[in-house]
Every structure is written in structure tokens, then in C-alpha cells.
């Protein structure tokens, strides 16, 4: 398997507050990896470090074999990493289709963009129905779909999902996770998903990392993690 993302002993901090204290992790092509942990464990800091918003003070971050720990955020997007931010952050005053077009902001291959638009519509038919509607008028679930669709429009090879279940009804969450799993399979896309709801995340992930106070406390396959006593106690029950 081709390694897409590699974190090697990464340290990062906000001022004097250490957020990451030697995190190492790997994501391979076509693989869904879950990042679990309590609030403040370092999940979001890990995502911010990948997307270039947080500079590591030590350690190496590699994307497809190239170091990105000193690369500008917009360049990282161009290289092929897209993030679906927490809280979705759709462009509420624009229509669905305008949002999706903006997802392809860094791309210059107009024709392929059109094809990708159709592809997003097949994953999320509801977005096709609502294409002329203002994003702000969509329901929470639809907005989450739009945010994922928008991230896909950048044609990423690594997709970062930050708390996709936040504030959504369970039935919608399940639907969205099913689609995520399908995308990963069909596109060979590597996905790193940060999620509070560990059972959901481990349902589609092949393996997962459990973070505690900025370090990796546990790393195993999804099946093993589901069985693990500590994980069960902390996140599944």
C-alpha cells in the first residue's frame, strides 16, 4: 500500500501550551483512519498541523513522500489535501453549486471540474436537487454533505474530516458515514476522520489511533479497538 500521510514524532504548541507531544501516525491510499480521543487530546491540532495552519516545532509531516510541515496552507490544498472543517463552514450566502465550484478553487482544469461536479451529485443526489438554493437554507445534514462535496471538488488524495457527526441526527450521521465509506472505496481516497462517536468512526475505518494529552495512547485495527476494554470504556459506552 502506498503511504499517503506520515507523521513522525511531531511536536506542536500554541504559545506555551503543548498540543502535540511526539505524535506519529500513518495513512495509506484507499484507507479510512479514525482519530479518537477526548476533548483537548490533540485531534484538531493534528488536523491543523496537516493542513498547515499549525506549524510543528519538531518532527516531520510528509504527504506522498514530500515534507509539508513548512508549506503554506493554500499550497497544501493544491498538493491534494482537503479538509471538511468542524462546523462545516459552508458559504451560506452562495448557492449549492457556487459552493461546489469554490471547492475547485485551486484547480485550473475546467472540464474535469464539470465531471467532478456530476460525480459529487451522484454521491449526494440531494445536492443536485438543491443546486440553486442558498447554502444557508439547507438542513444541517445537507450542509455537511455540501461541505464534503465541496472538499471532494478539490480532487484530493487525502480527505480530512473534522467531527462530521457534530449536531446531526443519528440517522443522518449513519447515512453520511455510509457515503464516506463508499467514496473511500470507489475513489481510492485516503480519509482521516476525527470523531467523538468512536463506534461510528470505527465502523468505516480500517484502523484507528487514540490520542491522549498530545500523544498516541493506542494504535490498532478498527476491529481490535472496538474490542479493546479501555476504548470501550472511554468512548463506546
Amino acid at each position: 500500500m502506498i503511504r499517503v500521510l506520515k507523521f513522525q514524532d511531531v511536536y506542536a504548541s500554541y504559545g506555551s501550551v503543548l498540543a502535540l507531544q511526539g505524535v506519529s501516525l500513518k495513512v495509506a491510499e484507499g484507507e479510512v483512519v479514525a482519530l479518537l480521543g477526548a476533548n483537548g487530546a490533540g485531534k484538531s491540532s493534528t488536523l491543523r498541523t496537516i493542513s498547515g495552519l499549525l506549524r510543528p516545532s519538531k518532527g516531520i509531516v510528509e504527504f506522498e513522500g514530500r515534507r509539508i510541515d513548512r508549506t503554506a496552507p493554500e499550497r497544501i490544498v493544491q498538493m491534494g489535501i482537503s479538509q471538511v472543517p468542524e462546523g462545516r463552514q459552508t458559504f451560506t450566502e452562495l448557492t449549492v453549486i457556487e459552493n461546489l465550484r469554490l471547492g475547485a478553487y485551486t484547480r485550473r482544469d475546467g472540464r474535469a471540474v464539470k465531471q467532478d461536479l456530476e460525480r459529487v451529485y451522484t454521491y449526494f443526489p440531494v445536492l443536485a436537487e438543491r443546486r440553486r438554493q442558498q447554502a444557508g437554507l439547507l438542513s444541517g445534514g445537507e450542509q455537511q454533505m455540501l461541505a464534503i462535496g465541496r472538499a471532494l471538488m478539490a480532487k484530493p488524495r487525502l480527505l480530512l474530516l473534522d467531527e462530521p457527526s457534530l449536531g446531526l441526527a443519528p440517522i443522518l450521521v449513519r447515512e453520511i458515514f455510509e457515503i464516506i465509506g463508499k467514496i473511500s472505496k470507489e475513489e481510492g481516497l485516503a480519509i482521516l476522520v476525527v470523531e467523538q462517536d468512536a463506534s461510528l468512526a470505527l465502523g468505516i475505518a480500517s484502523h484507528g489511533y487514540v490520542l491522549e494529552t498530545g500523544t498516541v495512547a493506542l494504535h490498532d485495527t478498527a476491529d481490535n479497538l472496538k474490542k479493546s476494554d479501555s476504548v470501550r470504556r472511554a468512548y463506546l459506552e
Partner: protein
Amino acid sequence: MIGWVLLGLFLLFFPYLHTWPAASSFLDSVDNTTGLGIGGTFGVFQMTTLGVWLVILTGLNILTGYSGQISLGHGAFVAAGAYITAILLDQTATPLVVAILAAAIGTAAIGFAIGIPSLRLTGPYLAIATLAIIVSMPQFLKWDKVSEWTKGSTGIDLPSADVPTFLGLDRFMDDSQWLYYSVMVPAVIMTVLAWNLTRSRIGRAFIALRDSEIGAQQMGVNVSLYKTLAFAISALYAGVGGGLFAYTQDFVSPDSFGIFQSIEFLVVIVIGGLASTLGSVLAAIFFVYQDGVVLRLAELIGFPERLRWAFFGVGLILIMIVAPNGVAGLVQRLKTLRPATVLEMLRQARPSAMISRLRNHPLAERLGLGRRDEHDPGDEES
């Protein structure tokens, strides 16, 4: 298409309309009824100033409407452009076009420089910072170190614009007509350019960072660059507008750009329509012609003209509730508007609904008064 041709013909021949007796008496009768001020040489002058404000308001709409940054001190950029032009025309033999280009570049540079510290400010803080710029501007213009060029509090009095004699131009037009074309040509070009800009990659980036800075960043938009770029482009428009202002008014002084005026800029683009080229055009029309109409209205219903701002305030709030996208949005909605929809809207017109519409208005959001559901990016894992 035919609409554009008609509009173009109208703009092209407008300065000669009042010389044609039939049209002239028609324009005068419109003025007598509405107080608009479109007839005679005064009508040409009003239309000329419309061109000047159109450039300025289009620029402000790029900044506030598209990129979502508020400026309560936009008059300071206009002043910069006006002064650069006036100083060059007054103290050097610079041709007008070069002077206005210099104003455009100079003001854009100032805008860029002001845009950088503004990166750290949002909502009410940015509003206050920009207000501080317009408040301190007169002091700067009167400062000993620069008063050699700015002529201090006296201001710069330029000779009034005359129609040039080359190509026998003076046989075809008088000074007021010449002034009209020298303003309207750049104004139309700048408006079309702005329209293109807002539909380009840059325009899309502005909209993205307006709606969600985090979202824009995730799309690969360089947020800092585009925020300062919006300031620079907006200032460039203000610079050109200021240059045209100096040329048409043939006088600039520290008193020429009031705080009230800068606030009025913002009010009229909200009324006209934020993030819309048509909105900027309507804003400019409103800015120039409302004075005469309000005056006429005041005569008719007998309230003192001094209450103009009370009238404005009520009108602004109504527009914010009824038409969040301004009159431009309303015009575009007209064709989809059915009586049933109107009835439904009236049925739902409860005070709480109105307040929530005000809170959700883009202007309230830009001022940081609106509802906020975005997370502060520095607020880790809250």
C-alpha cells in the same frame, strides 16, 4: 442585449438631451414633480457626479459587499485620490489621465498598507479603526510637514475644467458636456471591470472569505493576501473616484470629506444592494438624487428636511428587513414574487422575526453584531 444598447445610447446622448426642446421640457417637468434634478445643465452636472460616486461606491461594495470587510472611513481613500490628483494638477504639468492613474496607484498602495494591520481586526474593531482614519485625516492634511503640498486648511483650488480645443472638440460640446464624458467613460469602464472581477477567481475568493474564512482557507484561498487585496482594489477605485472628484469639483479641502459622508456611503450600498454591481449603480443613483427627492417630499408632506437622517434610518431598517439584498435584490426577486408569497411574508411578520432578520443581515454580520456560528480558529478544541 437591447437593454444594454438602450442604456449605452442613453448615457452617450444624455448631455445633449436637454438641448433638444421636446426632451428638455420633459426632463424639466420630471424635475418639477419629483425634484430629481436631471434636466438642463444642472442635470448634466448631477449625472457627472453620479459617475464619480459610482466609481467610489463600486469600490466600497467590493470591500464590504464581496470581501465582507467594513470600512466606515472610506472617504479617507477618496480624499487621498483627490489630493494626489489635485496636487499633481496644481503643482506640476501632469496631464489629467496620468494624474488620475497616479492617484489610483498611490491610493491602492495606501489601501494595501492599511489592509495589513486590518487583517487582525474584524467586525466592530475594523469599523472603529477605519473610522479613526477618517477622523484623523483632516489633521494629517493640515500637518506642517505636508501642508506645502496640501495647502493646509485652505485646500487646493484648481482651475475649472474646460473642454480642450484639439480635434475641434469645443465646437461639439460645452464644458459641462466635456466633464460628463471625462467622468462617464472611466466610470463605465471601472464598473464593467468590477463586474468582471466579482465573477472571476478573485471575486469568488472574496465571497468565500466573506462567508467563511475557515472554509475559504480550506479551499486553498490565501486569506491574508485576498483580504489585503480587497482593501487595495477598493482603495484603487476610491483613488480614481477621488481623482475624478477633484477634477469635477475643482476644489479639495480637508473639509471636503466628512465622517457623515463615509457613513452615508455604507448606508447607500446597503440600500442599493451589497455584493451586487447593480446594487452599486442603484446606490450611486440614490446617493446623488435622494437629496432633491427628499426635499420635494419634505415640501409635499411638510416635515423638516433636517429629518433626512431619521427618514434614512427608518428606510434603512425597512430595507434590511424586507430586502436583505437591497433594492437590487428586490428588483431581481420581483419576477419570482407572487401575491401568495407576499401574503405569506406579511403573515409571518412578527417583531421577533423582524429582529432576527436584522440580526442575520449581512451588514450586522460585518459589524460583528449578527449571529455568529463560526468558531474562532485559534480556539483549540473548545
